[in-house]
């Protein structure tokens, strides 16, 4: 299996769509899950955004300098795509816990997932983003700064406060 640098080089120099397909195959899971977390499990919106993320990545891949990992770069595109979507007037600003309960229950019918979504509702947007990038995507604090453009101190405090909130609400459940 070719490494990312080689695949990226082939996309930039030869416009090789097969090489780009390999990159999409490799990173689709993390990007789609990340967007599902941000959209509170709105799977169709998350997948539409994920598709746009990869199309934008293809268009701008020549600007990727390799200063961060390709995964970090893709996550930053995904984060900005979500923020743009959130700014649109038709975006559902507040998702109630009942909506999440119904959506998740009908799709997967798993109590664990319902509970996770409910606990996540107690977090602020910044806390949810920072905790997801840290624990789900396995990013360092510095990489989270690159994705979100939050100051390092803010990232650390979001993670600390988010963890406290989760622990407290898990105790209550």
């Amino acid at each position, binding site marked *: 299996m070719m490494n990312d640098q080689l695949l990226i080089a082939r996309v930039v120099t030869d416009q090789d769509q097969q090489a780009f397909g390999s990159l999409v195959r490799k990173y689709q899971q993390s990007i789609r899950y990340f967007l599902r977390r941000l959209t509170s499990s709105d799977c169709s919106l998350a997948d539409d955004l994920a598709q746009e993320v990869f199309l934008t990545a293809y268009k701008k891949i020549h600007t990727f300098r390799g200063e961060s990992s390709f995964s970090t770069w893709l996550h930053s595109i995904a984060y900005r795509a979500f923020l743009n979507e959130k700014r649109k007037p038709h975006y559902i600003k507040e998702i109630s816990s009942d909506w999440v309960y119904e959506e998740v229950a009908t799709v997967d019918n798993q109590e664990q*997932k319902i509970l996770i979504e409910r606990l996540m509702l107690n977090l602020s947007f910044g806390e949810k983003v920072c905790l997801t990038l840290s*624990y789900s995507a396995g990013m360092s604090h510095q990489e989270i700064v690159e994705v979100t453009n939050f100051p390092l101190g803010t990232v650390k405090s979001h993670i600390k406060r988010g*963890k406290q909130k989760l622990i407290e609400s898990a105790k209550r459940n």
Partner: protein
Amino acid sequence: MKLSTEEDLQQFFAYQGSLNESGFVESVQIKLQERKKIRQRIILAATTAAIMVALAVAMLAGYEVWQPVIDFALKNSYVFITVIALSVLGTLYLKPNKV
């Protein structure tokens, strides 16, 4: 639910299940092809429109309408060549990447 240790949190945030679908990859590639075709059509339409305008001007006003341009190119050939070269280089440099 127990969420007291780092391991519990990692377990809590772990992405559940696999989302590795070939259908998603294919749909991204189909979209890329569609956008490429749309871009080609736009370039073709713009080029055709530019040629038609040039031909219409020449037909309606006669070829003497280009005389000032030809005079300028002959008098200041180095300026004319430099401008053309800069335009070509600028177009190549700013050319959007495929999509």
